[in-house]
């Protein structure tokens, strides 16, 4: 099995450690991983702003870069959901269609494809899990609080293997952090307020770290935490699962 590693644009530029941890973690599980260098972005920033028609080049680049792999894995639920729902190619439509079914967010790749039954990692801290909306309601990484269905959580399943890690309970377990792509600047007031409220829930319930499967939300909450000069930090779930 060869996995193509997709490190989305902003993760590449601002959170390289999450990309490195993803790569190393997959390798620990014996997966051969390659990082095609011509990748850039999934196209979501344009599409969610109403400019889906401008994502053609992004789609072609993605399809060309990843067509040859068995799976594509990315440390970002939101980008993965966008690709699953919207990746198209005029040059190679079959490859794009195949890729839509083969692109996985890291957590679901570990639980559903690799079917991880044990994991050696150590992270002796109190941790709050942020359920990013696209990972939650789009990829169904956890059960959604609105539905009357049996509960489960793939990120928490993995985090429970980690030695010393204590999960905290939140007052609102899956409320949005308010990032929302261009929403964070177009609707600055509401976005900031949502971010502050989400962070407060974690802080008040004793989190030392906020983790999740989506760096865009973590970036948003980090921006708030740092402005508040809080000691609480954000960390991508790959970095916890890869911590020794």
């Amino acid at each position: 099995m060869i996995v193509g590693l997709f490190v989305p644009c902003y993760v590449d530029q601002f959170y390289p450690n999450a990309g490195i941890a993803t790569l190393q973690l997959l390798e620990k599980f014996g997966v051969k991983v390659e990082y095609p260098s011509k990748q850039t972005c999934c196209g979501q920033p344009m599409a969610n702003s109403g400019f889906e028609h401008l994502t053609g080049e992004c789609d072609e680049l993605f399809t060309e870069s990843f067509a040859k792999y068995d799976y594509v894995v990315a440390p970002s639920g939101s980008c993965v959901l966008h690709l699953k729902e919207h990746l198209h190619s005029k040059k190679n439509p079959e490859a794009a269609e195949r890729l839509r079914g083969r692109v996985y967010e890291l957590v679901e790749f570990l639980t559903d494809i690799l079917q991880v039954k044990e994991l050696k990692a150590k992270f002796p801290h109190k941790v709050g899990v942020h359920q990013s909306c696209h990972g939650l309601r789009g990829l169904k990484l956890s059960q959604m609080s609105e539905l009357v269905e049996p509960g489960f959580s793939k990120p928490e399943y993995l985090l429970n293997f980690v030695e010393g890690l204590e999960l905290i309970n939140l007052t609102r377990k899956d409320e949005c952090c308010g990032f929302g792509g261009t929403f964070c600047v177009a609707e600055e007031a509401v976005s900031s307020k949502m971010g502050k409220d989400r962070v407060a829930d974690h802080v008040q319930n004793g989190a030392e770290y906020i983790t999740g499967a989506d760096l865009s939300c973590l970036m948003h909450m980090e921006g708030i935490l740092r402005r508040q000069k809080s000691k609480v930090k954000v960390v991508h779930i790959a970095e916890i699962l890869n911590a020794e």
Partner: protein
Amino acid sequence: MNVETKDHSGLADIFNQNESRVDWHDETLWFIRSKRDKAAQGLPEWELLRETASQIKHNVLSNLDEYLEQFESNAKANGITVHWAANAKEHNEIVHSILKKHNINRMMKSKSMLTEECHLNDYLKKNGVEVIDTDLGERIVQLADEPPSHIVLPCIHKKKEEIGDLFHVHLGTAAGEADPQVLTEAARQHLRETFVTRKLSLTGVNFAVAETGEFVVCTNEGNADMASHLADVHIACMGIEKLIPQRKHLSVFLRLLTRSATGQPITTYSSHFKKPRAGQEMHIVLVDNGRTVQLGREDFRNSLKCIRCGACMNTCPVYRRSGGHSYHNAIAGPIGSILAPNLDMKEYADLPFASTLCGSCSNVCPVKIDIHDQLYKWRQVLVKEGHVSPVKAMGMRAMALTFSMPKFFSFAGKAGRTVMKYFPSVVNNKLNPWYKEREMPAPPKQSFREWYAKERAGK
């Protein structure tokens, strides 16, 4: 309302100037969302009910013409006069003509978001007709000269002290009186007088049954019943999508409606109106006002399944923190944001962008409308129709171009991080909305691709 700030973001900005009030508004609506969760969890068949309701409405929308004709003929046979209104103007004129026919210039009204959509109160006021809303929440916003901020809880944005001040001015309660029981009693006395003196009552419709020609009005206060039973003339106004095929389908919808809306098992009153009592006149106004256009938009057709429970508003993290008035439309929140652009794309082009696309709205919707997907789809339509700013469009084209060229992207990323590192004021300034309440990410020394090229490439 200031014209310059009449977009969601600007109005939300104003709402957020009082943070403790935002917290109060958010907590109040979250409490209702929590009650809804508890009520839903009490029914193991909840998800099946939602699916069934969605399918019934699917059938209705697919056969709307036939159900409408069936409803009309059954209602007529029951002795009800049926009117058809193509738009808001016709709707208002029909109501006015019935008033004129009876020489009535004072009327009462209860629970109708449709008349808000049609701006009936303004129209009648201009024509010298006094309208008193008898639903308590609607009466409060009417006294405040404001539109409802929520379709089920019209004055949810008002604190009891503010209601006390309004009642002091309009109903003569003591200054500073804010005890809900005292205020409710004052409203009750005021409305009792209305019920016995006004001769015409207008209500909304929650469900109209094609099979029987009857309609059902769901309320907690019973004021719609009091008004309609006492009045000589009862007018019921409904959007054409309010139909259900058979009476038995109420067993699905009535179980879903109030659990979704407020967490109650059912409204206090679910009143069936089938025919006028002896000596009474009963009218139904069937209103299109853009609904058949929406029916023709394949991507947005499902929005007509809406039963106006308001669950999407209560769960919406944006609505809770921006208030209903920030949507500058009769129907606020996520559902309002997918209905409004159908009526006027230019006027409501901002609304589909007033969302993080978190998807909670679609999950609480009792008829399973794909609300957040429709918000996404409206964005695409609005951009194509030219309803976003040229500056934004230019930015998006530049972004798309950057992402299409890996080498340039790599260069631009490095250049950007370098600038941020050595000249942080370029991004950390007042012109950057992110920076107002949030720090920018600290730029790392190297990107992932730079690390990979150094550590892994060729190995």
